[in-house]
């Protein structure tokens, strides 16, 4: 049967004296007093963060210490609350990573605007921006709440790279014309 009418209880004379409910309510709460704690003593105890958690967005480096971001500004474009601001910069041609050509000159994420949605990580074609485990941010001023490039790399650290696409490009360039 699809639709079921709900039965409304009729109280017995005893129940109408309020007493049985008070007694059974106290019994329930007493039982819970002696059950194990469900709370954490934050911040001494911290909850376990599952993999894939969407915490504070960070920038990461590849295992060679190269900054992975190539300042394509796609995250800046997709960011729904417009929290990201990037100033693209050039990498000098004679630098060891000169073949990558571009890196951000400035990269600011305004954590007062960020909504931790993870779209930046989703669209990034370089796997350079990641939402990692940190979840609490605080500061005394608005300016403190803007994460600049240095801070973003400090938070992000180094992550393994499975594609090595820029290394492959360099190898192709060295071995002859790529196209």
């Amino acid at each position, binding site marked *: *049967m*699809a*639709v*079921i*009418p*709900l039965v*409304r*209880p009729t*109280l017995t004379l005893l*129940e*109408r*004296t*309020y007493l049985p*409910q008070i007694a*059974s*309510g106290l019994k*329930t*709460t007493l039982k*819970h007093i002696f059950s194990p704690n*469900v709370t954490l003593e934050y911040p001494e105890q911290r909850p376990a963060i*599952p*993999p*894939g*958690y*969407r915490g504070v967005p960070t920038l990461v480096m590849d295992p060679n210490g190269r900054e992975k971001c190539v300042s*394509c500004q*796609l995250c800046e*474009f*997709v960011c*729904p609350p417009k929290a990201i601001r990037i100033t693209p910069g050039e990498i000098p041609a004679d630098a060891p990573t000169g073949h990558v050509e571009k890196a951000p000159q400035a990269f600011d994420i305004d954590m007062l605007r960020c*909504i*931790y*949605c*993870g*779209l930046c990580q*989703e*669209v990034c*074609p*370089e*796997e350079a921006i990641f*939402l990692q485990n940190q979840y609490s941010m605080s500061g005394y001023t608005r300016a403190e709440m803007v994460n600049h490039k240095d801070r973003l790399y400090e938070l992000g650290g180094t992550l393994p790279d499975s*594609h090595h*696409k820029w290394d492959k490009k360099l190898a192709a360039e060295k071995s002859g014309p790529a196209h």
Partner: protein
Amino acid sequence: MATEIAFSDSAAKSARVRPAPGAGQEFETEKMSLSMGPSHPSTHGVLRLQMELDGEILTKCDPVIGYLHRGDEKIAENMTYNQFVPYTDRLDYIAPLANNMAYAIAVEKLAKLEVPARCQAIRVLTAELARVSSHLLGLGAFGIDVGAWTVFMYAFEEREKLYKLFEELTGARFTTSYSRIGGLQRDVPEGWTGRVGAFCDQFLPILEETLALLTRNKIFMDRTVGVGVISPADAIAYGLTGPNLRGSGVGLDLRKDKPYSGYEQYRFDVPVGTKGDCYDRYLVRGEEMRQSIRIIRQVLANFPGGDWYAKDARKIFAPPKDKILTSMEELIQNFMIVTEGPQLPAGEVYFEAENPKGALGFYIVSKGGGVPWRLKIRAPSFANLSILPKVCVGCLVSDVVAILGSFDFVMGECDR
């Protein structure tokens, strides 16, 4: 000189049926206007009630809304379809997973996309978990409103377990942003379905224990039985949906009547009230949680494998990530989709889903291209609150608190 009238509780109750003061009055009285909210613990957010009181009895009640207006509908016109997903979290923020799903299905209807069975099953699963989470909050908050603190504590303990599950699935506890057009943000993690099953097993006894604190409780019944009665005709006329409509005895449930996302495969009952008072709305929510667990168990018992993202949607909405990193075509396509939006056909669609609060509808007008030309959100809380001026008149101020609690509305959705 001020005249002091001490009404006992029972006297106040009898005063409810007293005719409006008029003839035979010895002193001059005037009506008092009282503003409840926008920051009042029992208005669940930022609802303001402009009330006109005759003594303790309401003669007029005007809800003043809009304190949480963010212009979501206008915001939608300025961004691509996938970019709007995080904004749907913030409609009914108690059940973001259900909103994500409703929005995704609406856009998929416009794009004429079919999502795979696994995606549908995950969506049903998350929507029902969201319903349990929302009703638990509704129950707990209703408990507090009428003076039952313990219920709130037990309800929140269970919600915490649900939040842990959501966190593991989506990466966020509260603002999940889980659906994508044509699919999901990601597949379910290893072992997650098992943990959902374990949650269901331990949840049912706790739910019964929590409900037992209220169902036959004389104090609770004194506060709710016969208070805020809505007739079925009124409920339909004011456009009520969800548990508030079913509490009045109208068995409309979009999951049954217009099944979407594979709801037709699952067996569940639609509970309806008989009297339409606050107590019936409470009973309906309690029973709906049991039914939700029933649906979740059916989904888990027959969990489909395969893709969780529609193949066609990959071309329109999001190329697979590993392809973006290695293939030039997908990389360019990714840039095009993000900057210009997915290219959808022109047309108009309306889709509404049975959310925990009622029917959440999205009406999308597209003139083709990457952004909606107009996106109208039919928010259930907005429609549900429209009946307040009718239902509150003649009540005591303390009854208003019980009525608001039984309505279980969210202002994020009402004001949008």
